Every structure is written in structure tokens, then in C-alpha cells.
């Protein structure tokens, strides 16, 4: 039986092609690698480790390597074996790297989330360096239907091996039953948040939620349904309220405008109402509202304007399809100087009131309502994180 996995075109980098043949007399491993001298021995050792794991004594393995990292080679090996021997079920798991063990939390920033195509390993390893709030390993639209199995294994390995530098670890699953298969592959590996594409009904989201709850009990995996259709917009509030693990809802405009039957325009007039409705539904349900991606990666000015608009509408985050978009998105969500100054004053007043055990916060002669304090705390938090105020802001008015 033959199984192939990976990619062998000349332009491929950081990936490999593996042809596994279950016939053979003993193990025959043929390796051609761009890094033969430096890592040839280590690649052969890894391949043998995988074969040992699957108890394969007789086989031929042909590898064409373009500098793939170990987690990629292991994933391609497992995929090739499973394609050749479809009854193979066990997962060859690399040791969980310590840098993959951090947690997320419900209220964290989700200003930027960077999409990584789930079957293209070369983008994985440096993604965290660009400091997005979240990294999405995508199993849905960016993966060809014939490669879903390969991407599941690769994404699983990435979740165990790659240091995403504190970004929230997100996976976008496929729709429907395929999505449930995706969950099985990835959920045990410290996924923080699952994006559910093309959400239209509360029940779909609840099914995902229940499936996850059966798999992990010791921690909560957050959900972010993406609303991408007219029906989804109509049901946005129901969707946002459908499970307690939902922390945000997002809008995806490419599919939405297709559903609407109108092209996506520069000024976005056609989606203005639905964007606002998503924000409203999210806030009504007490979750974050996250805006769609901006697809022209060359146009940073356009992106910035779009983020400013999103902020104005009440969105708290935006999708990114290129790392260069991340700083622009963060900048777009930056509070302005007046906003920060006012927020600092309110938080200082709040601190004084709490220190003195007062129930009421006041600034001068003005009483400050609790939600205003909450918003001010959030703005100060953002400003601190973005280095817009220094760490001693509480003492002085340093801006």
C-alpha cells in the first residue's frame, strides 16, 4: 500500500514530501534533504521513531526534504502511513513543549487574530513573533478538501511544539460533522479558543460546545462563532447567548456579501447595518464583537481606516491575514490621548474611593457610574499594554 503526504513542488520551503510504501523487506529509508549534512541523521532517527511507534518493520520510505522542522516531518510521516494503512488510529505525539502550556482568559484582548493556513507549516514558527493577540490555525477555507487529514495532524503537532509567544491559541474548525472530527484531533492539545465558521443557529454552536465539554473537563475552551450569512446576522444574539464558553462573535464579510448578493465595496456600505447588528448582539450578550478581515494586504492606509471605523462601531478586534497587518490593527484600536487621560483620572478616583471604603466614585463634583469605571479600567489597561502610559501612571499624570 502506498501513501504520500506533504509537498514536493520546487517552491516549497520548510516542508517535505514523503512517499510511504508498506511493502518491503526490512526498512528502507531514502532521504534527499536540503539539510542533509546538518540534520540528515536526526531526520532518519525521527522517521525510525515513527515507524517503531506504529510497529512497522517492513516498508520503504522516500523523503524529499526542503528544510522541514521535526514537527512537520513527524506529521507528514504519520499522514503518509495513515493514508497507506487507513486502519491506523494511534497518534504519534511529540512531547508537549513547555512553551505551549500557558492559559488564556475570558476577558483578554482579541484585537488581532492572525490566520495561518493549516497545511502550510512555513508560516507557523515565526507567527508569534509578530505579537498578534491570537493565532488561528485554520482547518477550514485555507485547506483543500483532500488535505483536511494532513492539516489536522500538522496543526495538532504545531499545537504541541510551536511557541506562539503568548498569543491565544485558536483553531478554526470546519462546518458540521467535519468540524467535530477536527475537534477530536486538536482539543486535547491546549487549544484556547475554537472558531466556528458560518454559524447560523444556536444549536450548531451548542453541539460544538457539548462535544468539547465531553473531551475536556479541567479547563474551559472558549468559542468564537463567526457569522457569515444573512440568517446568521438575524440570529446573532441567539448565537452569542447559546453557550457560556462563547467569549466573542465575529463577522465574516466575504461570505456575507455573497449571501447578500452584492459585491464587497470599498466603503462597506452594504455591510454597515449587519456589522452594527453584530456589535449590538455581542454587547447584549456580554461578549466581544470582532470584525472581519481586511483583504488588501498591500494597503495599510486602507486597513487603518477600516480599523478606525470598526472601533467607532464598537468592535474590539479584527482578523489579520498577514503579519504586517497586526501592528496597524493594534494602532487602530489604540485609545487616543484624551480618552486615556480621562480614563486615568477615573481609575485614580476609583482607587482613592476603594482605599477609603467609599461606595461612590466621584471626580470633582461629578459622580462616576460603575460601567464608566469599568470602561476606564479597560482603556488604562490597553494604554499600558501599548506603552502609551508608563508603569507609574497611577502616581502622576505621566502621559
Amino acid at each position, binding site marked *: 500500500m502506498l501513501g504520500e503526504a506533504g509537498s514536493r513542488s520546487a517552491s516549497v*520551503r*520548510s516542508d517535505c514530501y514523503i512517499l510511504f510504501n508498506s511493502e518491503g523487506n526490512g526498512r528502507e529509508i531514502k532521504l534527499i534533504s*536540503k*539539510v*542533509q*549534512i*546538518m*540534520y*540528515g*541523521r*536526526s531526520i532518519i532517527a*525521527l522517521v525510525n521513531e515513527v515507524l517503531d511507534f506504529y510497529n512497522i518493520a517492513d516498508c520503504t520510505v522516500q523523503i524529499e526534504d*526542503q*528544510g*522541514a*522542522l*521535526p514537527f512537520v516531518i513527524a506529521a507528514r510521516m504519520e499522514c503518509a502511513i495513515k493514508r497507506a494503512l487507513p486502519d491506523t488510529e494511534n497518534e504519534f505525539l511529540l512531547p508537549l513543549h513547555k512553551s505551549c502550556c500557558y492559559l488564556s482568559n475570558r476577558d483578554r484582548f482579541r484585537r488581532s487574530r492572525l490566520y495561518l493556513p493549516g497545511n502550510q507549516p512555513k508560516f507557523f*514558527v*515565526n507567527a508569534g*513573533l*509578530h505579537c498578534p493577540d491570537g493565532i488561528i490555525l485554520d482547518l477550514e477555507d485555507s485547506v483543500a478538501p483532500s488535505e483536511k487529514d494532513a492539516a489536522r495532524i500538522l496543526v495538532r503537532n504545531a499545537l504541541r511544539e510551536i*511557541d506562539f509567544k503568548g498569543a491565544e491559541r485558536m483553531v478554526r474548525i470546519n462546518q458540521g460533522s467535519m468540524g467535530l472530527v477536527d475537534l477530536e484531533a486538536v482539543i486535547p492539545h491546549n487549544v484556547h479558543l475554537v472558531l466556528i465558521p458560518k454559524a447560523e443557529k444556536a444549536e450548531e454552536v451548542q453541539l460544538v460546545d457539548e462535544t468539547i465539554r465531553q473531551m475536556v473537563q479541567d479547563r474551559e475552551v472558549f468559542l468564537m462563532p463567526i457569522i457569515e450569512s444573512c440568517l446568521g446576522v438575524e440570529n446573532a444574539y441567539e448565537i452569542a447567548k447559546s453557550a457560556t464558553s462563547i467569549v466573542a462573535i465575529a463577522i465574516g464579510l466575504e461570505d456575507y456579501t455573497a449571501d447578500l448578493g452584492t459585491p464587497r465595496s470599498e466603503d462597506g456600505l452594504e455591510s454597515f447595518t449587519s456589522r452594527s447588528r453584530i456589535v449590538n448582539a455581542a454587547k447584549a450578550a456580554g461578549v466581544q464583537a470582532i470584525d472581519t478581515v481586511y483583504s488588501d494586504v498591500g494597503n495599510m492606509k486602507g486597513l487603518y481606516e477600516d480599523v478606525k471605523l470598526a472601533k467607532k462601531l464598537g468592535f474590539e478586534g479584527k482578523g489579520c491575514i*498577514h*503579519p*504586517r497587518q497586526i501592528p496597524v490593527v493594534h494602532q487602530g484600536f489604540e485609545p487616543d490621548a484624551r480618552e486615556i487621560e480621562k480614563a486615568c483620572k477615573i481609575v485614580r478616583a476609583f482607587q482613592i474611593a476603594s482605599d477609603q471604603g467609599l461606595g461612590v466614585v466621584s471626580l470633582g463634583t461629578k459622580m462616576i457610574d460603575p460601567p464608566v469605571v469599568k470602561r476606564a479600567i479597560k482603556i488604562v489597561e490597553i494604554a499600558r499594554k501599548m*506603552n502609551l502610559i508608563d508603569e507609574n501612571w497611577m502616581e502622576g499624570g505621566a502621559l
Partner: protein
Amino acid sequence: MEMIKNAINRYVPALVNGKATIPYKGIGKHIPTGRKAAPPIATCAHYPSDGNKLVSSIREALEKCELRSGMVISTHHHFRDGDLVANIVFKEAEKMGVKDLVWFPSASFPCHAPIIELLENGVIHHIEGSLNGPLGDFASRGKMKGTAVLRSHGGRYRAIQDDDIHIDITIIAAPTSDPFGNSNGVEGPSACGLLGFALADSQYADRVIVVTANLVPFPCIPWQIQGNYVDYVVQIDRIGIPEKIVSGTTQITKSPDRLLIAEMTTQFMVESGIVHEGFSIQAGAGGVSLAVIGQLKEYMKEKNIHSRFMRGGSTQYLVNLLEEGYTDYILDGQTFDLDGVRSMRENPRHVWTSPFTSYNYHGKGNFAGMIDATILGATEIDLNYNANVVTHSDGRLLHGIGGWQNCLFGKCVILTVPSFRDRIPIILDEVTTVCGPGDLIDVIVTERGIAINPRREDLLDSLKNTHLPIRTIEDLKAEVEDICGGVPDKPELSDNIIAVVEWVDGTLIDSIKAIND
């Protein structure tokens, strides 16, 4: 072969191509004595009084220069990968039946692959100069007869001046020339900017031939090469392929990881105080350098800071800074795009330099040391900050030194490198080849953080409160090895020395062995 351990603990041969060598002694430790080389005295009596030195063909010029077997022939890389002249000259030499020539180029490029055949059939004995691409590969396999001597641009000038190498005939490909031999690189269809790499050759070679495709009546102005050094002038149809000589436009990198490196580099220079009124910087035409220039410009604009001079590798980005008044001068060593050529032709503040003014270590100073920050690359760096630019981690010789060694004398030397390339870590316990000592390398900027040489306490101090990811080089190395799957194996090399690396003062800093095929 007798090998000697030098001051940086590398082994170098005692003899190279039959000549005794001097092992590297440390920076500024080798003090030469004696007098410089000098070409034979010429007399106007032997040259046409009307100044017309034209001959009909390269063949005729070579015959008049009495080309013989065993001679040292030099050419230059002003046309980079678009050069046609070197191949024509050596093909002609083959037809003339000479053997065992030494080719002494200022650099070689993939376009010189036809030279391999002439190395195999004995027309050329060996190459003494940077070996790039296919020629490097050929030498790496131990197929070249003699030993290649790799020198920096400044080291090449020095070697000629100090008489370490004597050029019998130099052939200068000139975009524009007059019949007297005055030449420049700013005019004509093959315009490349400047002709600085040929300066030493014109001054010191026994015989000087200018080959041009654009002959103008005397005087050819500016005369970057002075006709008073020239024996013969030849006009041929094509000397280079214009689009390979200079690109129409040079581009800032689009790679997000490399842009991140550029951003950190810029930020580092700003926070450490390098970017101040009247500062100077060296930046090449690499994507990261160009990105740094672009970002610096924004900062300079915002803070109203001007640079006194910028050292190029000139490109549209440097030209732009000059034309908008953000730098007083471009001191150009090599022109990379059409904007650079135009600017040099039109703007007196865009100055053509030579390895003599910029890099020669055996002079009364040079300006490399006056530059506040130089941004360079490397193929490998070790924990002592020694760096390699000529070989890859598999042992293959693939690049020349260029001006890299000379630029290490800048006040702050920054190497911008990805922390690994295709799974190959850049930071190692020991580099394959030492091209520059860590004593001169100050900062390494990778996408995973910045390592500052502990020697530079001043820099570490000035960045105490920074948000930049300053890390130890050991820490960076450990992270990358963790990603790449451990410490990479080293190649098993043969004992056959195929090349030596000269330091700027002519001492040998390292040697390069053949790879096992």
C-alpha cells in the same frame, strides 16, 4: 601541508600557491615595513601624441600587451552578473594558446560559469579572488588547481599596493571611454555607476586595457579612470547586459520576518543614540538594509534629524534621502539601480569612492571607521561573535567577502540575520569559516531578539530600559536549536585546502577545505 595556528585559533597553511604566508595576529597587530609596489616607468614617447590608443580588437590588445602563459590577468565586477568581458578575454586567451593564467577578479558571479571549462583545460590555473555560485562550488569540490585567496575589496587594493600580487595585464570594462582611455561608469548603455574596483589595477598593473561599448571623443568626463594609466582602448559592441548590471528598481523586502528584523534594527539605532544630528550609516542593497533606510527616513523626518553622509550600495532609497535633504552626501561604493546611476551622474553630492578611500587598511586611514553604524549580513556567527560570510554550514564556498571585512571597522557593527534559514541555525559554537573577528562585531539582530556583544557595555547600558528584546547570544542559540531539532552536525571535510581567507592586513584568518562529494 604545514598548518599554523593563528591568533584566533584557526589553522592556516604556511604556504599558499608557493608563497609564504603570515598568520592572523589580531587587529592592528601586523605592522608591515618596506615600500609599496610600483609599475614600470612609462614614457609619452611610446604613446601616440594625438592620444589615440584605439586598437581594433581585444585580441590585438592582448597581443600588444604580450600576453604569455602564467600571467596574472585582472577584471572587475562593476557589471556584476551582467559582465561579458571576462569570459571574452579568457576565451581569446584560449585561442592564443596560452596556459596557466591566474585570474584576479575583484569578484566573480554566476555569469562567469564558462570560466570553469578554462580551469579544467588549463588555460586558467586558478582564481585569486572571491568565488561565487558555480565557481565556488567547483572550487569546493577540490577541482581547482591552485588555492583561491579570498580578499575583501579593501584587502584587494592593499594586496596590489603592497605587491602581494602583481598584475601583468588588467582589462577594465568601461561603460564610456575616450580614445585616450579616460573612462567612467555613469554614461552609456552599460552604465553601472562607478569604476572604483579598477582603480588599483589601473595604477599598479604593467599593462592596462580599457574595453568600452561607448566611445566618445576626448575628453570623457568625469574621468573616473584616468587615461594616463591606459595602454590600449578597444571598442566592442557589448560589454555587459544592462538589466543584470543594475536593476531598474531595488525593493524593500516584503517578508514580515525580515521587516521585523529591520524594525528592531532601526529601533536599536534610535534608542542607543546612534541616530543623531550629523550621523552616518552604511547600508547595502539587501532587503533588510533598504527597509531600515525607509524606516530611518520616517524617524529623521519626524525628529528633523539629518545625516552627514550615507555609505552605499546606493539605491533609489538613498538617492531619495539625498534629494530630500536628509543626508548631505552619499559616499557610493557600488551602484545598484538606475536611480543610483542617474544621481551619481547628476548630483555632485553623490560621490564615487574607491576601495582606497573607503577600505584600504594600509593607508593613512580610511573612512570605514568613521561610520556610526554599519549594517551587514552573515551566514554563521559563533558565541564569540566571530562571523562567516563565505561558506555555508555544509562547508560549501558560495560567497565572496566583498566590503564586509572592511566595514567591520565602523563604530557600531550590526549583523542582521534570520536566526535560522531552512532549519539551519545561524548561531553556532564554532563557525565553519572565520571571516571577521568578534572583537569588531557589536550587535546581532534576529527576528527572535537582539544580542549585544558583552564587550559593548556602553550599548548594553544605553538600552537598560528598552522594550527591545535584548538577549544573550547563548539564549538565542538555545532557542533556535530547540526549534531546529538540536545542534546541527558538522560536515566532514577533506584535508585539501581550496581557499584561504585573508584579513584586511594581508594575514590569513582562516582556510577553507574541500567538501567530500
